[in-house]
């Protein structure tokens, strides 16, 4: 009899615990869901490069520029900034397969680069064939570095370079010629992407145009910029919160590219 009572009590306790668990599950669950649903941005910069031969110049304003970008997105765009800073050592693995870069909606890199690669502080290159962007969350990546997209003008991924990295990401923004380290390039790119007065005279520009027009402010007519995308419709993408991506893309062997000569 006493054993039966104990069993009944144990049963009711288990039921209570289960019910409580379900209650907690239901009430607490929306919080992590909301956090995951928030628009996320991140950025890396390299200011000081290791010594090597040939020597690589340090860059004066990469930190400031990256911070400006993330601050603008956080303060005016409501973005969640998960990685904000020089979380050294920035390694290849942060950009390559299943990378931390890929776990954000938009990502900003500020440092040296060349056709089909970016250069990390330890002079290690992140090459186009080592990265796959869009596996997770990434829609747009901005490479504020020299010549990154110089060779991406064929429309066929196999003959491009960073175009091969498009694996769900919608746009890669870069340049054909060199860029300078400037403290507020990113500030204007972010500023164009976001409508500051919500319904007033200000207007959000597409991600593509924001890259071109934002950089045009500080560059002369020798500077040529380029953006590559999975297809033509990606040129109509707005930032999440400003209109968002235009339609779904089909990952295939071709890509689109847009080239802009600064004023």
């Amino acid at each position: 009899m006493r054993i039966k009572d104990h069993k009944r009590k144990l049963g009711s306790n288990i039921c209570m615990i289960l019910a409580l668990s379900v209650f907690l599950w239901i009430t607490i669950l929306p919080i992590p869901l909301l956090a995951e649903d928030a628009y996320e941005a991140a950025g890396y910069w390299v200011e000081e490069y290791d010594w090597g031969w040939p020597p690589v110049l340090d860059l004066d304003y990469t930190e400031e520029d990256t911070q400006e970008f993330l601050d603008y997105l956080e303060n005016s765009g409501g973005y969640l900034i998960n990685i904000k800073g020089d979380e050294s050592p920035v390694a290849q693995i942060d950009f390559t397969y299943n990378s931390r870069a890929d776990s954000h909606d938009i990502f900003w890199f500020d440092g040296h680069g060349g056709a089909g690669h970016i250069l990390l502080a330890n002079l290690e290159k992140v090459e186009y064939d080592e990265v796959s962007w869009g596996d997770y969350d990434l829609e747009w990546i901005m490479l504020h570095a020299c010549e990154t997209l110089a060779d991406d003008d064929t429309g066929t991924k196999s003959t491009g370079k960073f175009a091969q990295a498009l694996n769900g990401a919608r746009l890669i923004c870069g340049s054909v010629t060199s860029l300078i380290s400037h403290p507020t390039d990113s500030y204007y790119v972010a500023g164009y992407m976001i409508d500051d007065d919500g319904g007033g005279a200000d207007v959000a520009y597409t991600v593509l145009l924001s890259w071109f027009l934002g950089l045009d402010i500080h560059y002369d007519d020798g500077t040529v910029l380029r953006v590559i995308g999975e297809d033509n419709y990606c040129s109509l993408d707005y930032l999440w919160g400003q209109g968002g991506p235009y339609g779904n893309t089909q990952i295939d062997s071709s890509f689109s590219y847009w080239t802009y000569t600064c004023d």
Partner: protein
Amino acid sequence: MRKIVCYLLLVALMGIISACRGPGIEFRNVPLNNVSDDIDIAVMTPLPETPDYICSYRIIKPDITCQYVTEYGAKFGIVGEPSNTNFGQMTMSNPEKDKILHVYSETGALEYNCPNKLFKVNPELPSDNEAIDIATNFLRGIGFLFLDIDVENVVIGGSTNGIPSHLLVKFTRTIDGFPITGPGSKFGIRIGDEGEIVRVLVWHPEFEQAGEINIIEPYTAVNSLQTKKAYPAAPPDCKSIKIEDISLGYYLSSIDTYQQYLTPAYIFRGKCYNGKGEYLQDYVSWVDAGTYP
């Protein structure tokens, strides 16, 4: 007594001379962005003949008010109330939001965009000469066809998958025969489908003469370039630069920041090559040409 009078006269004379010579340290110099040590820089052109000094000009800071912006908005066919953006511009747009005017609060530079028309697929573009006519007539219409600007060239301003989307008509401003140069030298009209103006970026700062400024010899400027003291640096892949043209001009740094004086600068134009001697890109660099007390 005579010594005191002489001394006072001397002090007064020095004051007058320094006033005539301009404001000295208030000049904004061309920034330095040292070029990497492993780049060979060869000058392939004779050095230009330059004067010992040129006029110095102080830029008049414009007073950017709502009325100023509204007046220019009307010239671009935009009516309404301007608003301040978070990034130093006053903005106006039409109700359809497809014509937008930005005015830079620090400098008064004007930027007009038709965002939906900059990268139209397969547009019908005018010829270069037609584009020049369209741009010139447009500038005349908004009161921006100044006597000191000239057409520099017409280039493809933007393309989609290699097909031109719009043309860029570039204008150059000259002062006393010297061109205005640098990233702040903006005077371009972009023309898209069926000859429509799709983007305008113009800055025509007003200035006043502020004395004269001594100019360094061209070989001194070349020496600065070759000892890697120039702006901006060449790209990392660049291993040699061949300079094909050297000229003297006035440097403007940016349309978003007020610059007190036009800065005399030597302009070096040439080409960058990689380690295999392959052409990488055109190269332009500036070296401060003024000597400052």
